[in-house]
């Protein structure tokens, strides 16, 4: 098992290098000269020349990459061009917000999507199945921003149950923090629940045909055990991989949802940075998201082996 983990980890490294090259070249691909942007309104040629020198912008591109990557490895992602705050500090500020939102959204997605998928597979072809599928399709089709606005109108403005916006750190007031995050997490979670439901349903339908499910019934086990233990335990494997991808996507930040509920997360950070041509921040956020994705896949690979004894052989 340890060897497998080490192997998965080793595989992640080249991926990370490729991602970092891509992230670095963002700066080269973005229009405009960074030194000019940094120099501010006056565009003093001397200042620009100085900045070019300072940030190694006159060096050959590979050397620039080495310089950038070297600093990044040491945790130095540069300064924000706008606020002069270290990029790492900005990320450190926003990442917990995004993680909290992602985790809450995932919990909601699991809580809705998986039971709905199981039920609609077991009740395939019945009215329950059709209703579940219709709701899931609606969940996939309704844009998040629209659902968010409607929720604010209903829950905050009309019923006054939850705050429409604002963010309180989890460490400051946990309950209040969860309360403010509930609606955005619901908006994100329901969309993912629809995806999860569809995948759970098809995975369950496949496994329900398996001979070993018939064996479980032949043993005299009740339907509950047949479905939840013998069937779901096998159907969960593809769902693990899917969940990792979905969670990775959530880590990238939910731009629209964060805007609507004014949550200071990754989505807002990257949008602001892109508009401001604040590319050290863009680079930092993208790199961070990519690492998050790679980590999630790494965990999914490990969990997959833990859940699937057939995979353990090959370790």
């Amino acid at each position, binding site marked *: 098992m340890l060897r497998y983990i080490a192997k998965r980890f080793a595989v992640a490294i080249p991926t990370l290098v490729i991602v970092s090259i891509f992230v670095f070249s963002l700066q080269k691909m973005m229009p405009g000269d960074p030194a000019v942007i940094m120099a501010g309104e006056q565009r003093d040629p001397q200042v620009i020349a100085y900045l070019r020198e300072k940030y190694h912008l006159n060096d050959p591109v590979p050397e620039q990459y080495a310089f950038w990557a070297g600093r990044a490895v040491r945790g130095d992602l540069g300064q924000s061009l706008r606020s002069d705050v270290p990029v790492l500090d900005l990320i450190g500020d926003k990442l917990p917000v995004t993680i909290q939102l992602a985790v809450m959204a995932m919990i909601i997605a699991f809580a809705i999507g998986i039971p709905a998928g199981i039920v609609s597979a077991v009740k395939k*072809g019945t009215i329950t199945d059709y209703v579940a599928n219709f709701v899931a399709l609606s969940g996939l089709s309704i844009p998040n921003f629209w659902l968010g606005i409607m929720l604010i109108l209903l829950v905050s403005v009309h019923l006054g149950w939850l705050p429409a916006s604002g963010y309180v750190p989890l460490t400051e007031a946990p309950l209040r923090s969860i309360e403010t995050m509930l609606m955005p997490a619901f908006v994100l979670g329901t969309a993912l629940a629809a995806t999860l439901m569809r995948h759970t349903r098809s995975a369950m339908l496949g496994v329900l045909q398996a*001979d*070993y499910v*018939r064996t*479980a019934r*032949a043993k*005299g*086990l009740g339907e509950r055990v047949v479905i939840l233990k013998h069937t779901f*335990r096998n159907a969960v494997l593809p769902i693990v991989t899917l969940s990792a991808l979905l969670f990775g996507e959530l880590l990238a930040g939910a731009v629209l949802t964060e805007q609507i509920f004014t949550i200071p997360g990754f989505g807002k950070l990257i949008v602001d940075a892109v508009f401001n041509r604040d590319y050290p921040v863009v680079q930092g956020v993208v790199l961070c998201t990519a690492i998050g994705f790679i980590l999630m896949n790494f965990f999914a690979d490990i969990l997959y082996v833990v859940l699937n004894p057939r995979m353990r*052989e090959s370790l």
Partner: protein
Amino acid sequence: MSVETVEAGGRANGPANAGSGDGATVLRVSDLSVRFAGQPVDTIDGVSFTLSAGRTLCLVGESGCGKSVTSLATMRLLPEKAARITSGEARFEDRDMLRLSRREIERVRGDRMAMIFQEPMTSLNPVFKVGDQVAEAVARHRKVGRREARERALEMFRRVQIPAPERRLDDYPHQLSGGMRQRVMIAMALANDPKLLIADEPTTALDVTIQAQILRLMRTLQDESGAAMLLITHDLGVVADIADEVAVMYAGRIVESGPVETIFNDPQHPYTIGLMSSMPTLGAPKGRLATIPGSVPSPFEFPPGCRFATRCPFAQTRCFSEVPPFERNDDGHGWACWRTPIETIAEAGGHA
């Protein structure tokens, strides 16, 4: 040959019991019919047979003749929406299995009535340890703790002669060979000492050498427990090996049944005769069918009369329009054919 009509009129298929079993009747299936969704007729039509304690009945026939469906219907393991039981009764321990509630049937399944399937490779759940899968069957039906259930699983592993049983308990199915997996399935099925064991082609997926081992094992275990066994197979070698009685199925009906020696030595139904002569080890008696031409018709093509008529070299007009009654003689040998005894026709020069 004189034939005594035991069940005149009625359905085409009479009881397949040879009446020679000394044990008490364990399972009596009568007039079982099953219809699949979207099909014009009952695919399984009026199947009847009886099983006694300690005896083995082999249900024989080509693939698709309804052997498995019959056994699954008895266990109530058919998908209810796709396959409807349209008539019949399956008396087991004085209760009709076909009319029990789901809860009641679950209490019988895996306890007093157990089943082994054809595919050991796919019949065990890949994500659970085999020992746990056997113990689960024990814990389901007996008031025992985890430890005792595991003890019982270990005992069963010994009984089915799995080498190093203590270690095998914690193996996953993929770590075992096909033969070992089938032993695990047998251990699981017999863990609660069932009165009736249904084995659906238990050796078909295995190597020939392993087949013999598994059959011998099943035979031994049956002798020990005195259980009745319904063995489904298309392999006449297996039948000769293990059966007390044989019921030959064709296209969802039992066409002939009786004690195993009678079926092998004196088959009456043209289909049985064909089946016997297509078995290379026995050799085809001269002048009889070597192969059966054609294949089993689909339910859409079943003639209203005898379902074998479309392939039968002796078929007459009547065979196509009228269902022959199942008639049984004193020896418990019975068949459903308008044209028997065939010898006289053959001697008289083919088709009359």
